[in-house]
């Protein structure tokens, strides 16, 4: 699961969703993988306004990855005058698209429930007393 996808996911419990602590989920004992691929500047550009930047930044801190700036870059910062992708875009691409969680746990900051990740696939199934 790409790190970008983590920005889409919160605790699955209905009672948690209203709380600020249920998003983002925290990575615990995670194993990361990096797979090189061609950048998709249009997609990154479209995703920027939809991302929770603070959550993204928190994630890089938690994982000990290169730090993100405090503010989300603007659309203009993604493309140089020559139309080529900028370093900002390439860094985002590496972080969001090339880096994946292979295994570990995603933990809710509110209820502490741990969602396991195995072979890159997270499970959000809840036991019945939590539904």
């Amino acid at each position: 699961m790409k790190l970008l996808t983590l920005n889409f996911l919160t605790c699955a419990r209905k009672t948690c969703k209203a709380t600020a602590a249920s998003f983002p989920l925290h990575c615990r004992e995670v194993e990361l993988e990096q797979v090189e691929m061609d950048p998709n500047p249009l997609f990154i550009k479209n995703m920027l306004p939809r991302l929770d930047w603070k959550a993204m930044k928190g994630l890089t801190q938690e994982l000990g990855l290169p730090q993100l700036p405090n503010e989300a870059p603007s659309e203009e910062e993604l493309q140089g005058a020559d139309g080529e992708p900028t370093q900002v875009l390439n860094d985002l691409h590496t972080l969001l698209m090339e880096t994946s969680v292979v295994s570990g746990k995603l933990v809710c900051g509110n209820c502490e429930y741990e969602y396991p990740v195995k072979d890159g696939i997270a499970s959000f199934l809840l036991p019945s007393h939590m539904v």
Partner: protein
Amino acid sequence: MDYLIRFIQMHESFRQLEIEALAELHQLQFEWLFYSNESPFAIIRFINTEDPEGAAKSLISRSILSLAIHELWGIGTDYPTLHADVRHRTQHLWPQYLHSTFRFEIDAFHGSHSQASQRAIIESFSYTAFQGAIRMHNPDNQFTVFEDYTLNTTVPKRVYHGRRVAESGRKAVTKYSLKKRRYIATTSMDAELSLVTANLTLAAPGKLVYDPFMGTGSFPLACAHFGASVFGSDLDGRSIRGKPDGRNVHANFTQYGTSPLYLGGFVADLTNTPVRAAGRGGGRLLDAIICDPPYGVREGLKVLGSTRAALQEVVYLSDGTPAHLSQSYVPPKKPYSFVRMLDDVLAFAAGALVDGGRLCMWMPVAGATAEDEGEEEGGEEYAVPLHPALELVGECTQQFSKWSRRLLTYRRLQDSVIDHDRLSAYQTTRSTAQNGTAESKGTADDLNDFRRKYFQGFRDPTIPRKHERLPHTF
């Protein structure tokens, strides 16, 4: 100039909606001058464009349910009226084709010709006086005479002449054929309808599409074919993880060279979805949602949870550890109303789609055939689910021998045009329904008209296996 779309004569109720979706995607405006579900030939006219030929190419390039688009050179109810129309529409164009190589074809729908009669038809167009060489392969231009016959008649009711402008995207149907795909299941949607559904979602480069019931990933794979980035989930984790030999959803993306577009799959239940709603710092996330929710024919639908009182509390194993933390723990599931599930999909879509984003959802029509009438009390046919924030763009129906299913397409309205009285009334009704206990007390049959109907009567051994939507197994 006007344009002729040569459709395939199948899935008729999907054809116009597909072309209209592609027009919206490419920001093209056009009107239908002629369309009939009984004919593979339709005539359109572009509006507000300086480059209709470019528009025609864009419009058709991704279409699955058409073969090609042609510049319309004439229409007639017989050959004399066709020839008169061709002269009228195109005489001024003939000089520019004077020396180009060309090929001349006859496309007779429900009709056929001997070689001699084909030649006679082609020669009847000799007044255009083209002097270029005839080339069967890669000619500069291809001209076609289209004939539309009523079945079992010998004289066409309409004839058309056209110059081919561009081929459709239909080749993808062969490329994505389930026969060639590494990882499939009995429930995998066929390549053709997966690609059509992907077109209806307006999947395109730069967009984000989600399938909450992804199974072996047919829909996300089709959306990625059109360049969209995709992710999905399923209540049955085995369908995503796949087989021990490496056949899995990810392997399918690798097979088609679109793995950079696959953001990942996870195990989840739509009623307790981990996908965040908007307003948590970020905006609404999704450009499209595409899905074929399980119909629950075999086992009834399930959702996480249990109706057993004892399971409303934490269950401890004999060694004192909570059962749900054990490696082998299987969360219990309870019966779930199909109708409620559809409502959950719509509510989720309203919260997650960007303005103008689309939801494409398949559902069974159930019991709509005439022979079923009178056998049962009414109500077998599901109402089309609606949501105040979603505008129904269209419904398409696929008919099988004993049942049918339909594809519903919705568009997320801007908040400013949503009827807020309707929205608050909807939310009240919905929260009443959610807090009620009806669904937790009913049996799988009470909850699912389609399942009951399926077992009561219209089970027919002639229904091909693949059309029988197997439910998720647990």
